[in-house]
């Protein structure tokens, strides 16, 4: 590589972005290697709060990946064909999200060398077993769904057109993949909430509502991130081509999903408010007036649900791209906060097991620097994957299916200044 080319890369916006992400990736990889070799003692996790930042990242990554199954179901099962390019974006976001979750889990479990035990030793009673199985299978579905996207790689199309067309052909099983994806996601997105919801020892978690709230918020946040990322990409690079009327419709729909989500959350919180129960009442108090109250009222409810609902359902504001993007970003932030708060609140309150009236004690948790570094590394990985997808795989390109069904061989490379010429 010559120096001039290097210089162009570094001074370009793309180059700067890649370098920034690489710094976080390097820091994250270092932190991750330290954890893998030195163990979890370097974290701020304790026997009282054994699930921390990485579990919150894991839950959030899966939630923001929830747009894929929903949009694919809409496109391939309900026949809303015109949203196919949006589903393509969502699928790629989904792949990024699920692999981020895998990375977070590998860091978090005490014996990452035994991760494969989850596949061969089954406890069918465990919600976490069910989640693991579904996530593994769904990751396979996502990979298959992304294969046609890989055929958009310019270099591959020029160098190995037969391979590219093979990859593109996987597209034909999309409806079957959509059915599998719908079933698997309906199962594990809600069971991920039920992982918490079945624990009788933690009364603030012990309620069936968590499962319902998890899947609803995942659908909203997943689609919100997909639309937000599409709009942002289109503003930043000419390689992303969007049709705003598609995204505007999806955003409107997200607004209504959020209405349903807020409705359920309202009744969930209200019903917890009555009849004192040790642990649950105190947990709710932590959310409504304690250490998590800012998160709860402002990030989750006001900015995370009420404001975006107004902005998305009101036509005037929805039509303004910047306002729409703000609303979608707020939804994603609100759902991520919801995951963080849910995971934490049940561990901040401990119900005593001593005889007599059930007393409650409190714990605390603040992630250590190494947890932040590794966590930011995981997020940087997700951003990097998506950026590469937008740049080289036409992940955000709403015109792709119009020219489609044009075979690979016939199609000339459209934008590919770096494509090597064939000998």
């Amino acid at each position, binding site marked *: 590589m010559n120096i001039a080319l290097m210089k162009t890369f570094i001074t370009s916006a793309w180059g700067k972005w890649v370098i920034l992400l690489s710094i976080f990736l390097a820091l994250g990889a270092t932190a991750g290697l330290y954890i893998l070799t030195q*163990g979890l003692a370097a974290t701020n996790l304790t026997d009282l709060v054994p699930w921390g930042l990485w579990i919150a990242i894991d839950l959030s990554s899966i939630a923001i990946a929830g747009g894929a199954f929903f949009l694919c179901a809409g496109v391939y099962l309900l026949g809303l064909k015109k949203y196919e390019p949006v589903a393509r974006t969502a699928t790629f976001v989904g792949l990024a999200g699920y692999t981020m979750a895998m990375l977070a889990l590998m860091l978090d479990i005490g014996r990452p060398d*035994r991760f494969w035990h989850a596949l061969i030793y089954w406890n*069918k*009673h465990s919600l976490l077993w069910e989640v693991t199985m579904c996530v593994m299978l769904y990751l396979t579905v996502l990979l298959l769904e992304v294969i046609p996207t890989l055929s958009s790689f310019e270099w591959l199309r020029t160098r190995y057109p037969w391979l590219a067309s093979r990859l593109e052909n996987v597209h034909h099983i999309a409806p079957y993949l959509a059915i599998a994806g719908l079933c698997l996601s309906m199962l594990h997105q809600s069971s991920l909430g039920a992982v918490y919801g079945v624990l009788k020892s933690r009364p603030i978690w012990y309620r069936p509502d968590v499962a319902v709230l998890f899947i609803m918020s995942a659908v909203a946040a997943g689609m919100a991130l997909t639309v937000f990322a599409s709009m942002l990409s289109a503003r930043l690079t000419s390689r992303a081509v969007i049709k705003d009327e598609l995204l505007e419709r999806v955003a409107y729909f997200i607004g209504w999903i959020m209405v349903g989500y807020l409705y359920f959350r309202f009744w969930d919180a209200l019903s917890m408010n009555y009849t004192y129960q040790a642990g649950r009442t105190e947990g709710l108090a932590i959310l409504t007036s304690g250490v998590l109250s800012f998160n709860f009222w402002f990030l989750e409810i006001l900015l995370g649900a009420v404001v975006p609902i107004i902005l998305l359902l009101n036509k005037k504001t929805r039509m303004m791209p910047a306002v729409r993007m703000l609303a979608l970003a707020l939804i994603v932030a609100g759902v991520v906060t919801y995951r963080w708060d849910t995971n934490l609140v049940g561990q901040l309150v401990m119900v005593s097991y*001593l*005889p*007599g009236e059930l007393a409650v004690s409190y714990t605390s948790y603040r992630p250590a620097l190494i947890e932040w570094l590794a966590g930011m590394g995981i997020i940087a990985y997700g951003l990097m994957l998506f950026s590469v997808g937008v740049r080289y795989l036409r992940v955000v390109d709403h015109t792709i299916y119009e020219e489609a069904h044009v075979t690979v061989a016939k199609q000339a490379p459209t934008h590919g200044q770096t494509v090597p010429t064939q000998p």
Partner: protein
Amino acid sequence: MTEKIGRRGFLMIAAAGAAGVAGLQLVRKADASEGVQGEHQWAMVIDQNKCTGCGYCVMVCRAHNDISPEITWNPVLAAGRVGDKDVYLPRPCMQCAKAPCVDVCMVGANYYRPDGIVMMDYNRCIGCRYCEVACPYGARSFNWKEFDGANPAVPEWGEPEVDRRPRGVPEKCSFCYQRIDRGLALGLKPGVDREATPACVGACPTRARLFGDLNDPHSEVSVILKEHPSYRLREDLGTGPRVYYLPVDSEA
């Protein structure tokens, strides 16, 4: 007017049938999850009238099970005062009949022995800590770091009888299953012969702990539970602990 069942109708019936069968299977499995009831059903009785909070049990436990000084399988907790007497509550693993840890463990590393002991397979565990979050009694401690070097409780309080657990898995009290199994093999009687009884029971200087078989109506634990009022921790949860406490008798 024979109405044919269309494709949609057929699919719906098939789906409903499949769901029904799956549901029945789940219910049956849930029933079976309590485990096999074996010949023995071990239980521990802790008499709070006699416990002085000396902590000998904590130390022998650490020695015989080779536990890090940073971990306690069997803490002795202060539980208030009755009259002018301090009351203590030693808390081993409750060996629940319906143990949340067994239910939630994704790889099945937690399981019931036929004698009721809730066992932990340290070689299978992947260290996800779901059991730790699920246990209502805080009976589990995670190995955040490797326990290497000498065990300060050895040899003063006894000799290790089990393998040390590796970094990255949670550990808990096992009713000293190794002593029970070896004792039975030698023809000894757990609860009667000290060698076949959990180390904490034998080490208690005030004999505040009793151990034995609930299937044997003449065992010390069966007799004392019949004659004295007892309670278990968080009975409202329905976990069915195998550790019973004799409450402090305020008149004594």
